[in-house]
């Protein structure tokens, strides 16, 4: 029986493993699926087949490893944040330094995988959607590296507030299309990318930037991002001789979070915290789909969405353009319902404070997205004993946000 919107879905039986999903139809419990127009179905099935083949091909993995190491700069360090630890006076805090990757965020891990896959499939035209521009920049970068045509859809509002990234994409040879439809933000950019794909099915590969969209995207993007958690596991065993006690990551669509979380889902002793964007506050405009939304269907999958009584999608708000999306990846929706991951939220103001604290104590300017995760580390760490090992994913660097942060703090950058 289908779960209707708003119906409580707690108290489900716990699976033996949290890592076996999705099922053949792309479902994580009631979430996920393939809710797309018929025109796209053959493409989605072709992609699923191509990905299954690549997954089992050692040469694909060899290419991934080669470019991860020499082009992206992996592995990214697991860094003991000593001064932050001292300042908070509780848990021992480690940063997973995804902001040190080429292009400055975790996004490139997934884009590398998808672009190598597009090459295998013989697709020469790459389209992508982007919010803050990090996924767009990563896609433009890999397209430049492999000589592929790149078109990036970006809401007109985001084009305006993320100008440096628009310029970066242009320099990399990509065409940035400002999207004027709907609310002119990330969700509309995704609508427009889907409209492009439906029109140019034969030669085009749609490189989705997060663990959302129709199956196989949520599973495939997760697999490409799991390098974050797999490395963390090895690095923590080397550093401390045991697994971490807790993991913290921010969530928009949720790709950096699932990448860190997934390899630890079956280690029941590891506490896992996902941090959504609470914007101006959960009773005001925000982007916390799990905390403030309910199940619905958008962009090819069933998941928690921000919407009104009639199923019309609401505007999300976050200071961070990368978290400004009214949905969340379906696997997170399922992990939320199963209770395996604890989803909490941080406001714009809390993220800004965390940004400043991290910059001043560690000499690391985090992006506004992971500043949300840091905001909850500031809250959680003091409650833990000193031998508690806490890992926070610094999913991107803050350079792109400096103009916006300056504005919020009442400064201007000349």
């Amino acid at each position, binding site marked *: 029986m*289908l779960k*209707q*919107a708003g119906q409580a879905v707690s108290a489900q039986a716990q699976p033996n493993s949290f890592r076996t999903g999705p099922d053949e*139809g792309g479902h994580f419990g009631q979430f996920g*699926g*393939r*809710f*797309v*127009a*018929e*025109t*796209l*179905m*053959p*493409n989605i099935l072709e992609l699923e087949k191509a990905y299954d083949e690549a997954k089992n091909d050692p040469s694909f993995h060899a290419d991934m490893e080669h470019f991860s190491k020499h082009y992206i700069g992996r592995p990214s360090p697991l860094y003991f944040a000593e001064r932050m630890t001292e300042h908070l006076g509780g848990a021992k805090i480690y940063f997973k330094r995804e902001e040190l990757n080429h292009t400055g965020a975790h996004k490139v891990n997934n884009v590398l995988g998808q672009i190598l896959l597009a090459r295998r499939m013989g697709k020469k035209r790459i389209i992508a959607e982007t919010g803050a521009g990090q996924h767009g920049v990563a896609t433009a970068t890999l397209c430049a590296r492999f000589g592929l045509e790149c078109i990036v859809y970006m809401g007109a509002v985001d084009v305006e507030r993320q100008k440096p990234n628009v310029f970066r994409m242009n320099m990399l040879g990509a065409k940035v299309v400002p999207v004027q*439809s*709907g609310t002119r933000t990330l*969700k*509309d950019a995704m*609508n427009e990318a*889907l*409209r492009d794909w*439906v*029109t*140019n*099915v*034969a030669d085009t590969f749609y490189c989705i930037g997060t663990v959302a969209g129709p199956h196989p995207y949520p599973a495939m993007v997760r697999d490409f991002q799991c390098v974050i958690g797999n490395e963390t596991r090895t690095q923590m065993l080397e550093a401390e001789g045991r697994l971490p006690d807790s993991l913290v990551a921010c969530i928009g669509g949720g790709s950096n979070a699932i990448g860190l979380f997934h390899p630890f889902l079956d280690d029941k002793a590891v506490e896992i915290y996902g941090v959504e964007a609470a914007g101006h506050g959960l009773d005001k405009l925000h982007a916390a789909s799990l905390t403030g939304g309910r199940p*619905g*269907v*958008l*962009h*090819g999958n*069933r998941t928690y*969405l921000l*919407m009104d*009584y*009639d*199923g*019309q*999608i609401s505007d999300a708000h976050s200071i961070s353009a990368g978290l400004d999306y009214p949905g969340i990846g379906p696997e997170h929706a399922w992990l939320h319902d199963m209770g395996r991951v604890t989803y909490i939220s941080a406001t714009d103001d809390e993220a800004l404070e965390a940004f400043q604290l991290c910059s001043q104590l560690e000499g690391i300017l985090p992006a506004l997205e992971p500043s949300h995760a840091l905001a909850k580390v500031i809250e959680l760490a003091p409650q833990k004993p000193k031998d508690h090992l806490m890992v926070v994913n610094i999913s991107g660097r803050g350079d792109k946000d400096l103009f916006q942060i300056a504005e919020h703090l009442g400064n201007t950058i000349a």
Partner: protein
Amino acid sequence: MTQRIEARFEQCRAEGRAALVTYIMAGDPDPETSLAILKSLPKAGADIVEFGLPFTDPMADGPAIQAAGLRALKVGQDTAKTLDLIRRFRAEDQDTPVILMGYFNPIFVYGVDRFLSDAKEAGVDGLIVVDLPPEEDDELCLPALKAGLAFIRLATPTTDDKRLPAVLANTAGFVYYVSITGITGAATPDFGKVASAVERIKHHTPLPVVVGFGVKSGAHAAAVAQGADGVVVGSALIDALKGTLDEQGRATSRSVEAVTTLVKELSDGVRSVVKRAAA
């Protein structure tokens, strides 16, 4: 109620012509005007009427239908109000098939069972839900068929012979062939290719095959009517309506007439093609 759909296609066949299927958005630019247009369509020559359920994120639609949906939402149109309009249409017209067309989320949120029973009671005959491929038949298609509503499937140029049987398996009423790979109201199709595509689909199903996407004029309608059992027109009607709205997007005295004038032209186009009546 698939009987009304079957009867209407039977009637068109007897008249030796293709059916004209028209699409407008419920609540665009306001509920009363959209109802007035809906009521005027059969008189102007429409055989089947499609009524759009507004949605904020219509991923398969072009600018005309996107804007129409937003105009409707702006004046507070919702699923319950759309069903009310159909109820009022049905009170005066018991014969014209009404198809609701839209996206799944508003229906899912309304509640599938409640939606099906309310839609049926209101006088809806069939559903076209763009983002429900056969892979998701359990969601709405099978419950709709069980409830006695036709679930009309879209077949597209990318639906090959291998996939067609799956696409046609749980469909009823008619098959809607999307003439292009693309969004509504965009490119004009190659009419020669459309005819051969319809023929290909007809090898797999006894259902009538109607063709839509990119049909804008009486001449287009006539060209499509050559090879298809019906012609669907949507974006062009919405453009005609939009051309009459005032600066605030409100209806004017010309709004209903602008749509019916184009429907008459389309109807003449469809009726200009004489087909052999079915034996």
